[in-house]
């Protein structure tokens, strides 16, 4: 790469972190409780690391600009946009993706509610919607419909299943098991 020579210079001050890259470096990621060793460039986003290196393609790439929410995952329990997060910045953190939401063969109640309420059509935004929806309940941002509408508005659904997404979130909030 063009910047190979110039960027590898190391600044010799005691309190400066070690420079890694720009070529492939070893990165350890803990995803859904499993540790993975990757050889990736530091510029690789968490989203591309999940999709292209770990074959965890449940996390979706809709815009790669932080505008659509399809890439929503949890890092240390907080929802983040994995397209705007570098994989290397997630070392020593716990990443949770849609593939890690079910309990074995038993779907998470939010996953089941999305099916029961037909809260998706093409399904491409769905993993991000579900990761946001579960976090929303934990954050206490689903008190009423206007709350849900506002706090779910970072996840675009072009099929416009929004009313059904709200129904699914209400069902899980209220402990209902579908209709």
């Amino acid at each position, binding site marked *: *790469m*063009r910047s*190979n020579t110039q960027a590898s210079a190391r600044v010799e001050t005691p309190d400066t972190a070690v420079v890694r890259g720009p*070529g492939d470096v070893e990165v350890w990621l803990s995803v859904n409780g499993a540790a993975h060793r990757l050889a990736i*460039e530091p*510029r*690789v986003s968490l989203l*591309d690391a999940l*999709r*292209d290196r770990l*074959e*965890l*393609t*449940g*996390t*979706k*790439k*809709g*815009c*790669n*600009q*932080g*505008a*659509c929410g*399809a890439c929503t995952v949890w890092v240390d329990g907080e929802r983040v946009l994995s397209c705007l997060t570098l994989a290397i910045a997630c070392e020593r953190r716990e990443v949770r*993706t*849609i*593939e890690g939401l*079910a309990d074995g063969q038993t*779907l998470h109640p939010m*996953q089941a509610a*999305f*099916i*029961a309420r*037909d809260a*998706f*059509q*093409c*399904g*491409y*935004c*769905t*993993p991000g919607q*579900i990761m946001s929806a579960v976090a929303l309940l934990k954050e206490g941002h689903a008190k009423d419909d206007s709350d*849900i*509408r506002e706090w*779910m*508005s*970072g*996840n*675009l*659904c*072009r*099929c*416009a*299943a*929004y*009313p*059904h997404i*709200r129904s699914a979130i209400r069902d899980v909030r209220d402990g209902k098991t579908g209709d």
Partner: protein
Amino acid sequence: MSPAIGGTLARLDGRAKVSGSARYSGEVPIPHLAHAVLIGAPVANARITAVDATEAEQSAGVLAVLTHLNLPKVAMQPSLLPSLAGLAAPGHTFFPMQDDTVHYAGQHVAVVVADTLERAEHAATLVRIDYDTTPPVTLLEEIKDQAYEPQKIFGGLLPGRQVRGDIEAGLRDAEVRVEAMYEFAANHHNPIEPSTTTAAWDEVGRLTLYDGIQGPTSTQLTAAAFLGVPPAQIRVVSNYVGGSFGSKAMVWPHATLAAMAARHVGRPVRLALNREQMFTSCGHREQQRQHLTLGARADGKLVAVRHHKLSLTSHFDDWAEPSLQSPAIIYDYPNYEGIYRLGRGNINTPTFTRAPGEATGMFAMESAMDELAERIGVDPVELRLRNCSDTDPATGDPWSSSGLRECLERGAELFGWAGRDPRPRQRREGNWLIGTGMATAAYPHAQPVNPQRARARIYSDGSVIVEAGVSEFGTGISTAMTLVAADGLGVTVDQVRFAGGNTDMPNITAAVGSAGAGAASAAVHLSVTALREQLIGMAVADEQSPLHGADPAAVVVEGGRMALRDRPDAGETYSAMLQRKLVPDVEAIGNWIPPAQDVGHGMHTFGAQFAEVGVDAELGLIRVRRMVGVFAPGRVLNRRTAHSQLMGGMLWGLGQTLLEATRMDARSGRWANASLADYLVPVNADSPDVVVDTVEVHENVVNPLGVKGVGEIGVVGVAAAIGNAVYHATGYRARSLPIALDDILSQAS
């Protein structure tokens, strides 16, 4: 007779979609995969004078840089025909990187292939291309004086001019006239999954394309034509598609470029468009202007309609979305003139965008109808009822089915329309001015022209697999076809697996123009009924069967058991018969030949839309508070998924009305807001609860099960219903979409 059809079966692919295991076209694991990145021209009207790829080619991991200088020429250019025809279906009559001309900004000028996506993206920034530029032409305003009347539009399928009666006399004699100009911003589909193709050649020259597309066959035939490779050597796989809305209805060059890049580097290649490229690489709803004049009697009965439209198209195609078709036949009036005019600019060819044509044309028609209703003091619903036609006004033929009156009446009832005070600015809740509006919805019923096929096979344990090469892009087609197969064969839903998604399966057309469910259900129905006849035939011919010697027509099947209609105790299951006869499986092909073009019936889908808005009197903010839509789409195969699709369509209409506009920077000739942060689509907070209902109509013309489809009709009329509600709330008559807050403020203060 139809215990499964019309039910509410949950999506059978639901589990795969909510658990993240559904693999879309860019997600299929392929060893040794390389990544391709497209470079789009940053200028809109230019010649390429120099290409310097040296630095890019030397960048780490780079396998190739392809430009017009080294990309092979395509074998042929197939003509632009809607993919419903079942033939090759290129999105435009053009293939990039064949010469040094740039016709529009974003046109593909190079493909960079590297071993990782990051390295390909970086190397793409290192390719230096010099341009000799000319000022571009990209706005309707710039071409309006050079516009021409095309012979045909829409891939040659529709005439540029349609006339009936005497328009001049009709308008002259009308007692009331409403005349207005309507402006429409360009729109982009923006499915959340960007178009992606993964291409892999094998060692004997056969190609597999994993492509996000509305019909795998269209990619197969289009790539075959461009590449000069027999279609039999190309397999297209499209298992899951992350939304389309028309952007994946036609086959755009990136699919073929992925194959060319893979052949060039000798490795499988994945080519994904980025979000910005989605605005320049797969069409759009064109910027357009419509001039509409209604002539009516004093009682509101229409006598004449003149509807002219001006569209901005590309250098190489006469494309306009067919906005004039539904307004021309929605009501009964004798005099009509519809004319399309086009101007060419430095812009990609527009394409199908959900409710292509009707979303705009019916906004004009139904906004004008609202003005007419107010002018003559007739209730808007009543005005529509007075103008409903029992026959197709263009031909005089009866409708295959209509249901428009029922939709209007049922919608009014569900919405609570009765007793509405028609005067604007009468209802206020705090700062919010409240208004209600309605409109008619209509969408022409399109038919495939070529035979549609499916294959059904039953195993001796009674399990059934039915296959047809459809793709699943959110319509719920696999779930609906499972219902169709179960009913036709007389088995339970859980005995049937429906599979689609690749070109090895029986050929079926791309699901476009709301024709997908009709075509697929016809083929599936015929395949399972043929299989059933075969099985019954085996039983009555078998001396060991309780049905031996029976009249096949007297045999009914339920739950996989054949029995005499009059003597239910005499019978046996498919499975028992096949096991006794040591037959492992039985298979049948269904081959549906669509009716000829002239079926002696008008074929159209109808509906009615109602909306309530609140408009902030000081800020001009518009909030849609509730919506009701009632439709008559013929047979509904799966109520659950059909209603979801109609609801989604209605919210698409909300987006078209209030949010969606792609704005051109005329100086650079580039879209100014090509991102999901700047091109606004409805979000959860924009979307009210929606009531959807369907009315039953007797439909036996369009296809064996009477399915007219639900993909588009939900969008149609929403913009007018909301616009009319905004007028009712504020007194501001919207004639430009999307409705801008400052328009409201300047009028409503």
